[in-house]
């Protein structure tokens, strides 16, 4: 393992911000930036790996990992700045679950050998990880999962099926929750297992979504033999392993970044289509502008509180996921509704208005890419149940 030699956490917030901004300006490819055409642009596959390697070469990879494991060792507050600057520079989103989820899990609960083997390969993108949690009958009710792993000698034999596995078709490995034991409480008897997707017996089938992308997959396991060493944490204790990071996941999903991009486009559309004199539209826009403005302040307040306390996020971060996802719905719908007939076009559309300027965008893709945000990572109904019980103290 190569520890990180640069210590950017020692910089002042302003210096840190300045250095990162300069780095992004110099190295992030202009043609991959988010813009009005693709405000939620994402990178996957080789372009994503290339960019991650560039970050790695310049010591800007894995902001949350400790430096001894090759990460940047940033405080939570600097991580916030890091994300703000990426957003500011229009860097496309990358779903890099190896860095954001598996790495921190291994660092916290994995064995020294696991850290030694996997962490460097995550950083240099030799391994690309996807997450195998959901199953056809275990979505929001994740603890009902049934994919089984039976220990035979030094190997687990895995049988079952995962679904909604994001970008499995771009990945080399999958971290899974599998059932290894039967207990009265269904959260018990689940284990956290690492699986190489090249192992015989694994089939991956992409599912096309309404935006036309194959972002989700089904992953089938038919007598897949996995070394016992690939177990993370204790046998039957996988639920605790997986839960350790859920709070952070909700913080990053709750980021106002996407909503900000959608609002930028909305404001631009209002101008482009000459709607500034329509008081009804302007009032709707004012509501959305105020919602995003206020939400940004709430988001940083909660993030600051997490940073100050030095503890993992509590259940209150479910609020962020609920509000940010529903705001994104409202914004993408506003953009469609003010665009009249343009809103019925699928794919690229050029919007013309009173001015000579023309705006190219893809409203349909945005509308569709915003649909699942209220569903994945725990449907909003589930988040509201959690908040009702734990934060408000409403009794069942």
């Amino acid at each position, binding site marked *: 393992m190569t520890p990180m030699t640069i210590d950017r956490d020692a910089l002042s917030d302003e210096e840190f911000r300045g250095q990162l901004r300069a780095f992004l300006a110099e190295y992030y490819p202009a043609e991959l930036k988010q813009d009005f055409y693709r405000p939620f642009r994402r990178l996957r596959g080789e372009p994503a790996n290339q960019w991650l390697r560039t970050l790695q070469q310049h010591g800007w990879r894995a902001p949350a990992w400790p430096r001894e494991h090759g990460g940047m060792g940033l405080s939570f507050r600097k991580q916030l700045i890091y994300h703000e600057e990426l957003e500011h520079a229009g860097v496309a989103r990358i779903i890099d679950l190896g860095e954001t989820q598996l790495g921190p899990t291994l660092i916290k609960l994995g064995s020294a050998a696991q850290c030694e083997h996997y962490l460097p390969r995550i950083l240099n993108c030799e391994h690309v990880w996807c997450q195998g949690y959901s199953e056809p009958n275990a979505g929001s009710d994740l603890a009902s999962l049934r994919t089984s792993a039976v220990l035979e000698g030094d190997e687990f034999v895995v049988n079952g099926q995962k679904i909604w596995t994001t970008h499995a078709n771009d990945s080399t490995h999958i971290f899974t929750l599998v059932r290894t034991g039967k207990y009265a409480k269904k959260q018990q008897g689940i284990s956290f297992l690492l699986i190489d997707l090249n192992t015989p017996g694994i089939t991956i089938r992409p599912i096309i979504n309404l935006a036309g992308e194959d972002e989700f997959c089904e992953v089938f396991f038919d007598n897949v033999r996995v070394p016992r060493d690939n177990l993370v944490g204790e046998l039957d204790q996988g639920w605790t392993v997986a839960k350790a990071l859920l709070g952070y996941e909700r913080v990053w999903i709750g980021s106002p970044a996407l909503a900000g991009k959608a609002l930028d486009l909305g404001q631009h559309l209002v101008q482009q289509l000459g709607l500034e004199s329509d008081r009804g539209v302007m*009032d709707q826009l004012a509501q959305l*502008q105020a919602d995003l*403005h*206020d*939400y940004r302040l709430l988001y940083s*307040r909660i993030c600051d509180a997490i940073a100050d306390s030095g503890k993992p996020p509590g259940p209150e971060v479910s609020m962020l996921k609920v509000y940010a996802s529903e705001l994104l719905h409202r914004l993408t719908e506003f953009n469609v509704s003010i665009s009249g007939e343009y809103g019925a076009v699928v794919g690229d559309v050029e919007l013309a208005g009173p001015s000579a300027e023309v705006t190219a965008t893809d409203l349909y893709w945005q509308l569709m890419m915003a649909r699942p945000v209220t569903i994945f990572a725990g449907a909003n109904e589930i988040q*509201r149940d959690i908040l009702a019980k734990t934060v*408000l103290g*409403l*009794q069942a």
Partner: protein
Amino acid sequence: MQEMDEFIAMLRDSAEGFLADFQASAAAQTTIAEPRPLQRELWSAMADLGWLGLMLPEAQGGLALPLSAAAELVEVMGRYRFPVPYIEAAVLPAQVLASAGNDPLAAQLASGEQLFCLAWQDHPGSEEAFADCTLQDGKISGNKSFVAALEPGSKMLVCVNANGGAAIGLVDSAAAGITVRRSASASGSFCRVSFDRVPFELLLSGAAAQQALASALAAGRLLASAFLSGLARACLRDTVEYLNQRHQFDRKLSSFQTVSHRCVDMHIHIELAEAVWRVAAESGTAATLSAAKARASDVAQDVCRQAVQLHGAMGFTEECAVGEYLRLALQYGNWLGGANAMRRQFQSLRQAEVPV
């Protein structure tokens, strides 16, 4: 910084004690639709606590605390649905007197021996203050609307048009030529006041008068936002308590998702409101202040209305406190700028401000 945090914690603690005692007393009873005079004894007690001159300089008998400290205090007042015109009779006039640098008057306000109120608004729903009342030969004539906390013996600070320029001056509310039409409000009363050649003592004029009013309104809006945020939080807390106790269909009301999810949404909105007024109090721009007032006005009225629904028939009775919450939400949610007006102001201000 840390010293200030400790001081604020103490201020909040002592407010909690005082307001809890008040709420348990008979004096806290309010009646619907009847203008309610300010209780002078209570006002003196508030003066003793230093609340009336909280932000005034020490030379004027004040505590010289920042606006953010006043907002903390007022947030606690909201939590205890304190039906007393603190913002109206203490904060707004004090801001104007401080701007005027008038030590004797400010000291009288801080000690509670003299009541003041600010008569600024020319027309309902308007920001105009220096047009309708005109000053001629040292006397003013014209109208002011929604004058709050005009009590017997109050001195009025009136915004007037002095030969086309702005001016603020002192008017004795007992003077001849004043006609008052009074209506009830949650914190006491609102008045429509007509002046017919009433003597006027000049305190501020020109840009200084405009600046003084602007800072008074900004302080009033911020504190109203903090009050509404505290009010909504307490109203939701009481509602949750009720839902946890009340059974229907052999279950606790709190166990129904349609009820609990609504409470969650209210909670999120209150968190938004609090996040915004706190930023506005510390370092916010003018746009953030408008956003704070818009958010708090919407949230408090929405939470209190929903609380009526969630309390069922009980919520519609005066025996239950929900009505008191709702009336205060209506008052501070619509006075000094309602949600729509404040949101429009936010929209135009944010365009003028340079983004980060």
